């Protein structure tokens, strides 16, 4: 029996009650924050100054900062252009495991290029890259893990997108990746490695800006509480309380706070992500975001966060284009709205267990007979595979 259901059953009721209490508490907090949100946004200039103050005095920060638009406003769906290009990338990976016969890492990236207005099927590209043996180890000699390889994959996605943009693609060109646009969120990656990655993302974005290529990161069902964090700062400054980071168990997600404010197809106002860590350097991508209600019915709002480079946020026509393209792309799968192009890129890239084993066998077949590499899985892994 894989699970002791009787034991789980005994605690299931208690768990459900706890989850229900948590939800009620979150809603209560959200309702309190509603008022504070309106109060804070009544003077956006003052709110921005408070955030600047927090940015100077706090060592770590992750919050939303209103940009030029009224933070309480929402913006209706703009029209789509007749011709444009959508370029999406998504990746998956094989993380080296010491339990397997061979320890190897691989990244697999799917790229979909759709020329809207052409009537032609999208161009698809699949890039599978085996990491060099030396790349599968950290500086301290330990095997790289999920975060390390995800960082390699994220960076490769960005550079492959850049390489995929050719002059013959109909303009405007919008590139989309799944997840945050910056890569600071990978908290396990720190120090020089994080700084190098951030610098690379920053430089890629600068190239895209020069060429007028738009980019966006799409986050489905986001859990961040950047607005709650923003309101904490407002509350502290307002009440003359010394600024400090709050560590409450209940953080009201932006999604919960904004769900009833944004109609289907509409977007929220633009905010900038203020994120600060002790070891940040100057070469860091400035990111703005808005929330987009990709639902088609008012009864079931579904908010996704759309992150864009700061320079795009300063051009309303470009923001409108991204808004229109992403909503319409998500509506293709309207019963579970999510951009079709991103789903397809994921479908292209996903690595299945059978493929993992095929690659492992391929690599083993390249080893000479007198190789000292055993080619044996760990006994634990072998026994786990028994059916």
């Amino acid at each position, binding site marked *: 029996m894989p699970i002791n259901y009787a034991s789980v059953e005994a605690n299931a009721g208690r768990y459900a009650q706890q989850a229900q209490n948590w939800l009620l508490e979150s809603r209560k907090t959200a309702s309190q924050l509603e008022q504070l949100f309106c109060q804070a946004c009544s003077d956006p200039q003052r709110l921005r100054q408070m955030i600047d103050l927090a940015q100077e005095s706090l060592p770590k920060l992750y919050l939303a900062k209103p940009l030029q638009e009224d933070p309480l406003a929402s913006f209706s769906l703009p029209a789509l252009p007749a011709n444009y290009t959508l370029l999406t990338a998504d990746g998956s990976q094989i993380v080296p495991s010491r339990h397997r016969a061979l320890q190897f890492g691989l990244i697999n990236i799917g790229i979909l290029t759709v020329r809207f207005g052409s*009537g*032609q*099927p*999208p161009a698809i590209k699949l890039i599978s890259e085996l990491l060099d043996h030396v790349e599968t180890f950290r500086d301290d000699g330990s095997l790289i893990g999920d975060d390390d390889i995800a960082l390699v994959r994220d960076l490769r996605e960005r550079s492959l997108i850049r390489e995929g943009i050719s002059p013959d693609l109909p303009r405007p060109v919008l590139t989309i990746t799944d997840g945050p646009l910056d890569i600071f969120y990978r908290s396990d990656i720190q120090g020089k490695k994080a700084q190098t990655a951030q610098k690379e993302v920053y430089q890629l974005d600068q190239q895209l800006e020069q060429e007028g290529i738009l980019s966006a990161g799409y986050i489905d069902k986001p859990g961040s509480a950047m607005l709650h964090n923003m309101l904490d700062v407002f509350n502290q400054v307002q009440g003359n309380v010394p600024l400090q980071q709050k560590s409450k168990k209940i953080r009201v997600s932006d999604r919960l706070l904004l769900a009833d404010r944004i109609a289907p197809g509409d977007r929220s106002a633009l905010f900038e992500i203020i994120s600060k860590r002790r070891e940040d350097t100057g070469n860091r991508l400035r990111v703005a975001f808005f929330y987009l209600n990709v639902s088609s019915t008012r009864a079931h709002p579904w908010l996704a966060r759309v992150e864009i480079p700061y320079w795009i946020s300063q051009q309303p026509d470009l923001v409108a284009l991204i808004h229109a393209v992403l909503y319409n792309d998500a*509506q*293709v*799968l309207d*019963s579970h709205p999510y951009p079709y192009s991103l*789903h397809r890129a994921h*479908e292209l890239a996903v690595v299945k267990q059978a493929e993992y084993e095929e690659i492992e066998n391929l690599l083993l077949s390249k080893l000479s007979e007198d190789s000292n590499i055993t080619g044996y899985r760990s006994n634990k892994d072998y026994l786990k595979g028994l059916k």
Partner: protein
Amino acid sequence: MSETQKSIPIGKLLRAENGSFVAGCRVRELDTPALGALVKVKLEDQSEIYGLITNILINDDSLVRQLVSGVSIPTEYTADNRYNRNLPVEIHVLTVGYAQNGQISHRLPPRPPLSLDELHLCDEKEVRCFTSLNDQAYLRHILRLLDQPVEELLAAHFSQAKKAHETGDDTTWYEQACQKLITLLRDDYQRLTNVLDVLTELERE
């Protein structure tokens, strides 16, 4: 090199048994095969297995089912699903005979073709050759089919075969084939009536 060897494959075998087989092809290749067409698979030992296309199946998957319920699908995404995604069109084939050492038989082959064997469309010369032998004995395989629109299959096949024979200046094949059907169905009046009805419709075209 014979005509057959030069012909372009219209699909590759997915699964097979002695009496029937299924080939897969891409949507792009779908303009060639048609219901009732005579096709063949060449085996490694140079023997050939002949069959008639009895059904062409367009498969779906969970993404296509999602898209079907969507409000609107851009043309580019319709094309993506038809031409890019890995959903083979299935061509179902009824085995009607085989050829070994140049001898055509209307019996079932000793063994079925193997997966990934190539499926080819027979040209008019081959259609004339296969359908005129053995007093059209291959028609019995069609009449054995259950739960399938046998009359429609016969009409589609007769239409193509009749054209192939007329191109070869043979105007008697169609009448002989009809006579053969009448003989085979002499004890099944209802079915015979249905078959003759559909063939009458074919003659009016």
